[in-house]
């Protein structure tokens, strides 16, 4: 298809006095792995709900496959696998019956449904859950069943809201591998998560939401380029190092690691800064450029919000 798989256009949603989304605009290109980032209450889940037709926008529009999501033909969602805010399993049914239910809703019948459910049970090691009703499974087990359901039918679009919630490290690694495979197969993935490291491994595009607004959005490489370069400087004493950098007009902040400062300066400025530090009697043991990651992009976007 031409155009974005999922999009928001000046999308606003109010819940009574609470403004969950405030003219949010973004586009998820086809084939992207799109990381949706933001603090709690930033509007990520509401945006996904609007884009999937669960919630009617107060203003603006949300599009799914180019069609306005609220009025979209339900058949469009045949190409979507989604988890939004929790597994959403039928509590009284075991894992296999829940998967059969999803297969039926996808229009699978007979041998096709049996094969798809069987493959999901095997690939996700869910057979051992047996006949235990979903409500008696652990949080992580329910999440794994829900993820298996989301992947049923090899959807073109995967929308996963906090998919790693409750998962153990091996299950997280397994999910990462499945998402990579789905991406290689041409699927578009929207990943809303607080685990920046996980999103960073996969994301080709990202958006940062805060206060219901999109603070930064685009290809991850472009976002990296738009973030101020920083140097990691380990100096002793650190307090003196901070004074020297401040005197040189370079903002620096503690990294959280003992004796390490993060200075807002490009790599080319490193020799001059080191010379100044040494002249001032600071013992410099490490200077390295900081590779701008999603965390830095995230922090910078939130800082812009604070400044605004």
């Amino acid at each position, binding site marked *: 298809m031409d155009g974005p798989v999922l999009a928001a256009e000046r999308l606003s949603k109010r819940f009574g006095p609470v403004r969950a989304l405030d003219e949010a605009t973004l586009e998820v290109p086809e084939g992207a792995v799109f990381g949706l980032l933001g603090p709690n209450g930033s509007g990520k889940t509401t945006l996904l709900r609007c884009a999937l037709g669960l919630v*009617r926008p107060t203003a603006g529009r949300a599009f799914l496959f180019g069609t306005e999501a609220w009025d979209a033909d339900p058949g469009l969602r045949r190409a979507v696998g989604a988890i939004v805010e929790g597994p959403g399993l039928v*509590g009284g049914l075991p894992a296999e019956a829940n998967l059969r239910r999803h297969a039926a809703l996808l229009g699978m019948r007979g041998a096709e449904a049996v094969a798809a459910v069987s493959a999901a049970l095997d690939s996700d090691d869910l057979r051992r859950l047996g006949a235990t009703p979903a409500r008696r499974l652990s949080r992580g087990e329910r999440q794994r069943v829900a993820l298996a359901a989301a992947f049923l039918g090899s959807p073109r679009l995967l929308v996963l809201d906090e998919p790693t919630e409750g998962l153990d490290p091996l299950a997280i690694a397994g999910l990462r591998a499945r998402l990579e495979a789905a991406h290689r197969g041409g699927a578009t993935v929207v990943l809303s998560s607080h685990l920046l490291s996980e999103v960073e491994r996969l994301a080709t595009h990202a958006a940062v939401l805060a206060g219901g607004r999109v603070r930064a959005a685009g290809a991850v490489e472009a976002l990296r380029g738009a973030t101020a370069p920083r140097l990691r400087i380990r100096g002793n004493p650190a307090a003196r190092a901070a004074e020297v950098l401040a005197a040189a007009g370079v903002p620096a902040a503690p990294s959280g690691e003992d004796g390490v400062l993060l200075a807002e300066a490009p790599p080319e400025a490193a020799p001059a800064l080191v010379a100044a530090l040494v002249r001032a009697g600071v013992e410099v043991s490490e200077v390295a450029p900081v590779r701008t990651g999603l965390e830095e992009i995230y922090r910078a976007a939130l800082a812009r919000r604070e400044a605004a």
Partner: protein
Amino acid sequence: MSLSTPFGSRPVLLGLECRAMGARRLLRAGLLLAAAAGAAGAAKGLAASAGETFPVRNGFRALAEGLGPGLLVAGLVALLLGSQAIASDASEGSLRATLLRPAGRGGLVAAKAAALAGAGVALALAAAVGAALVGGIGAGFGDVVVLYEGSPVGPPKQTAALMLGRAALVVALSPLPVVAAAELGLAVSAFFDHAGSAASAALFLAVPVTLVSWLAVPGSDLLFVNPPARVVDAFRSLAAASATADWRQAPLAAAALVPGTTLLAAALAAGAVLRRRDILA
């Protein structure tokens, strides 16, 4: 992958909803309760007629007496089942998960309404079976005779064949108020995300209406033309009429039209509410 039916996902949803309804413990318990209430009502009717010096003695009367309490219990269970239909799915998140699939909101409500209708029919039949068993065992389903101090007086007033036809009509129509109660519960359920809140709201709405009807407050017939109380009332008259000689007094039209209109209006209201509301839970 393509839709395999000309009706979209509706047959699939209907199948899923019927299976889910069949698995509900409340339905299983309700079937037993409705049958028990029907049987108890019939037994009470038999006992009352035994003490009379001039009774109409027959299993048909016991069946009619039993249908009243049986349908009341069946209606209450149906109301609770209906109130859980959407709200309990919402509270466990499966409503959201279902609507993230190619399932339309209207189709989902239609499937739930149909599954509830099936449950309502089963509950009403359970009440009728309970009442009929006790009536049949206690007094038999022979010709209706008038007894005086235990002895027949005059010729039979109604033949068994005629009464059987009437009883069949009563039993056939009796699911209507129960289904209406279930659909009213569904309409209430469409507003809620929590099963407990929905059940409370359904009971809160139904109990005062029923009480007012029972207390026969003047004008209540006019004020409460639609709620389940009116439906139960209409059926009580219908059932009573089958046991006595004058069938023509039975409010047949009201018995069919009132619950029929109620269930259709309630199901449509449920659809209208769910189509417009946000799915947040």
